[in-house]
């Protein structure tokens, strides 16, 4: 949404709404008796029916992060309508009307907090204007209660439903000219509000991408090479065609840009063989009868073991590049009272959305219609247009609810595959990947290797820190989500600090996984800081607070760091968790603390673990103190996101690892890529520390510190330092 759209004259807005295919009625003067069904659009987001029911458009894709509820709450609050009278409708992908529509970076709150409240306020102002015209009074004499405009002086009142039609002739006011509500008067924002679709979810109604059904639809599977990007050398599809129900089986050449540059994904169409059938099971049976020879591909020489050996050799030398060099690290280490050296590793991870990648596509008369559980519809539309050689405006993208996003669905590889297969087939097609396809054709959280040296002085101050980070990339640019900012914490807080980076080329696709970068860097940096705290014989929590210092903000934007906010959450989590009493825990138990700033949110977490003599880990509880500003918009959703993020982080640390052999992923399914189950899930207690900053998002920032809080707790319990993930319980045996 841009203000330009709102300022555009009303006719233009209505025309573009119509062009986007929304089901709207423009009957400005409806026939008598038809009024019950007429919804009058006040802008691209709000339609009002005569009975007072207000339809509010949810602009962004929903994948479980709660935006289909939270964003309309912002509009409804300022529009002043009762939430039970709001009907939420998912938008189409339409950047002209709605600006960027995506789910990523925990950005929905910071990007929309102000704008969508103003969308609601504009609609309310128009309704007031319409009432004022009818009553022949100045609008300033009118006010609203939910769903009604009032004129206090005369006692007159009109429902929104009765005023909506009259809004057609009213020019929307400049959104910036409007005064928004005093938060003390909020009726919707700040109230725990169940997800809009909760009733459909618990009764199993079709909501997800996998549930899309089109008339005459066929089902498709798509076999790609295990080695990323390998082409089909030859394929015998006769076995597949012999399976009952299989209609078509054909080779897809793919496009040259599908894996360009190496290690990227989602730029084009990967080669493979498609099987299309009356049912998905038949398509999958047919696919298992394919006889494919794959062409050689250079990535087949790559493996996790090979990467580890390269990383070890690189780590022993100087970094290929120095990205930051403050003070004199070597001199400071030489004169430090205590020094620590340690090497850390974290593996590739898969997103493992529970709903495997899928997409339904229909190609008819040169036009493409798509139903996709995507986090990023517009780049998907562009990708399909480029690959199929059609115009973007001839493509309609429906954003269907996704069974988990976590960053995986920012890429649209499944979308372009479905589009291509649908065009070749000539009927609507639902492409569904198997779980194995999904696990073996992800863009993975990149593995990484860090070699640290650190030093503390006699007073227990962290005076020197050196990290040599070995990651993937072409030497100049790191692979997707494999880089590290020069301002990575604790840069700006340690007087002598050097970050070096070295890169290994790789053909393994990498990409953003929930809290990209941070989900790995928090583990290594917060663990190493804990090591230094112990080396200094300091209380780890006090050591963290001391490191942050007493300035509220350190550095300048975009690298500014709200040290005061972080100290605030550290102190809060210390109190919540009873940190000071941790010395009384029984043998084999311990508490660990970690903090991390990401996605504009400040998080400090404490984990309490018990480690059995056989090494088995029981996470007993996690406490979270979070500072995401002055307002929690939907406490229900906010708490769910934080608790889920923490457990997601623990699940990664305890279980998850993708390994590569001969250029392909070795894991297949939840049998060899384990996710946390209910028996392992601890209670997670959350406190939102309210500060006077604009509200920010919660999809990601609770995850990163959960991992080092756990590993630091394991150290407290056992004296054993976890420097490699996932945690190997063998090394924790008493």
């Amino acid at each position: 949404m841009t203000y330009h759209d709102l300022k555009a004259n009303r006719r233009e807005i209505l025309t573009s709404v119509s062009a986007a295919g929304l089901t709207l009625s423009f009957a400005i003067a409806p026939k008598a008796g038809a009024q019950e069904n007429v919804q009058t659009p006040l802008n691209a987001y709000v339609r009002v029916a005569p009975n007072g029911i207000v339809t509010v458009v949810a602009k962004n894709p929903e994948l479980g992060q709660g935006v289909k509820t939270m964003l309309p709450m912002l509009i409804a609050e300022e529009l002043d309508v009762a939430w039970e009278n709001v009907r939420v409708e998912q938008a189409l992908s339409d950047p002209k009307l709605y600006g960027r529509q995506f789910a990523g970076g925990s950005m929905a709150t910071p990007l929309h907090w102000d704008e969508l409240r103003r969308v609601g306020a504009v609609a309310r102002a128009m309704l007031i204007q319409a009432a004022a015209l009818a009553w022949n009074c100045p609008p300033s004499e009118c006010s609203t209660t939910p769903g009604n405009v009032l004129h206090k002086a005369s006692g007159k009142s009109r429902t929104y439903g009765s005023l909506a039609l009259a809004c057609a002739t009213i020019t929307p006011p400049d959104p910036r000219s409007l005064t928004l509500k005093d938060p003390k008067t909020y009726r919707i924002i700040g109230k725990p509000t169940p997800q809009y679709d909760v009733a459909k979810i618990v009764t199993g109604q079709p909501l997800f991408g996998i549930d899309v059904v089109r008339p005459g639809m066929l089902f498709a599977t798509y076999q790609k090479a295990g080695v990323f990007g390998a082409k089909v050398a030859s394929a015998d599809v006769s076995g597949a065609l012999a399976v009952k129900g299989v209609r078509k089986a054909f080779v897809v050449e793919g496009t040259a840009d599908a894996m360009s540059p190496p290690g990227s994904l989602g730029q084009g169409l990967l080669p493979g063989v498609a099987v299309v059938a009356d049912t998905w099971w038949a398509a999958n049976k047919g696919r298992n009868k394919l006889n494919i020879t794959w062409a050689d591909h250079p990535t087949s020489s790559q493996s996790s073991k090979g990467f580890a050996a390269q990383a070890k050799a690189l780590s022993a030398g100087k970094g290929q590049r120095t990205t930051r060099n403050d003070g004199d690290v070597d001199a400071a280490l030489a004169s430090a009272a205590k020094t620590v050296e340690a090497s850390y590793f974290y593996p590739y991870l898969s997103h493992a959305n529970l709903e495997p990648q899928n997409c339904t596509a229909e190609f008819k008369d040169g036009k493409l219609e798509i139903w996709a559980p995507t986090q990023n519809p517009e780049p998907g539309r562009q990708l399909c247009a480029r690959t199929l050689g059609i115009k973007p405006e001839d493509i309609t993208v429906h954003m269907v609810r996704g069974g988990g996003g976590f960053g995986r669905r920012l890429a649209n590889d499944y979308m372009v595959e479905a589009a291509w297969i649908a065009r070749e087939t000539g009927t609507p097609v639902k492409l569904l990947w198997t779980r194995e396809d999904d696990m073996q054709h992800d863009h993975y959280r990149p593995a990484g290797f860090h070699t640290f040296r650190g030093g503390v002085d006699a007073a227990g101050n962290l005076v020197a820190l050196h990290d040599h980070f070995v990651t993937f990339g072409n030497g100049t640019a790191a692979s997707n989500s494999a880089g590290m900012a020069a301002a990575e914490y604790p840069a700006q807080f340690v007087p002598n600090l050097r970050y070096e980076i070295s890169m290994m080329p790789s053909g393994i696709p990498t990409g953003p996984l929930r809290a990209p970068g941070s989900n790995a860097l928090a583990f290594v940096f917060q663990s190493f800081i804990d090591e230094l705290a112990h080396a200094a014989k300091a209380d780890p929590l006090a050591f963290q607070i001391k490191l942050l210092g007493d300035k509220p903000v350190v550095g300048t934007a975009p690298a500014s760091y709200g040290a005061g906010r972080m100290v605030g959450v550290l102190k809060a989590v210390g109190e919540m968790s009873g940190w000071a009493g941790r010395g009384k825990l029984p043998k084999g138990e311990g508490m660990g603390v970690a903090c991390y700033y990401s996605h504009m949110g400040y998080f400090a977490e404490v984990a309490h673990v018990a480690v059995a003599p056989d090494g088995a880990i029981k996470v007993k509880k996690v406490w979270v103190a979070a500072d995401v500003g002055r307002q929690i918009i939907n406490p229900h959703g906010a708490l769910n996101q934080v608790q889920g993020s923490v457990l997601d982080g623990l699940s990664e640390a305890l279980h998850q690892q993708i390994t590569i052999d001969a250029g392909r992923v070795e894991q297949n399914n939840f049998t060899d890529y384990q996710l946390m189950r209910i028996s392992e899930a601890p209670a997670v207690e959350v406190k939102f520390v309210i500060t006077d900053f604009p509200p920010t998002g919660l999809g990601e920032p609770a995850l990163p510190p959960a991992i080092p809080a756990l590993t630091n707790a394991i150290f407290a319990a056992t004296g054993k330092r976890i420097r490699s993930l996932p945690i190997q319980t063998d090394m924790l045996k008493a």
Partner: protein
Amino acid sequence: MAYTLNVNGKALSADVDGDTPLLWTLRDTLGILGPKYGCGVAACGACTVHVDGQPMRSCQIPTESVGKAKITTIEAMSANPVGKRVQAAWMELDVAQCGYCQAGQIMSATALLTKTPKPTDAQINEAMDGNICRCATYTRIRAAIKRASGQKEA
């Protein structure tokens, strides 16, 4: 060949190969979309249905083996007094995030509470450990089971 299945109290006919997993017969042939595909190897529980009241992974049941067994899916849970209570608790506590696993979770929870009206935490773990929630809404799943069984939630 054509199989007549008893699904949610109705006799439904499906012309499929006998080895077709019940999950796919339900979804693609009978249009019953509540049971979800997650793994195909009984590792995630998203496809859970009741077979004569027992929670089973429908991705592992060949259609030819169903016979006269009564199949119940999430779509019919509101007609089951325990299921209805479980659904209500799920709604009140707003358990779901993405929601993809929740039909399977509710099927497992309903079977648990039917057999064990007041489950302990250990019994909840045992009954629910086969159902993955990738969003990790486990805290609320446990609380909702406790609420549906009339027990204290934490």
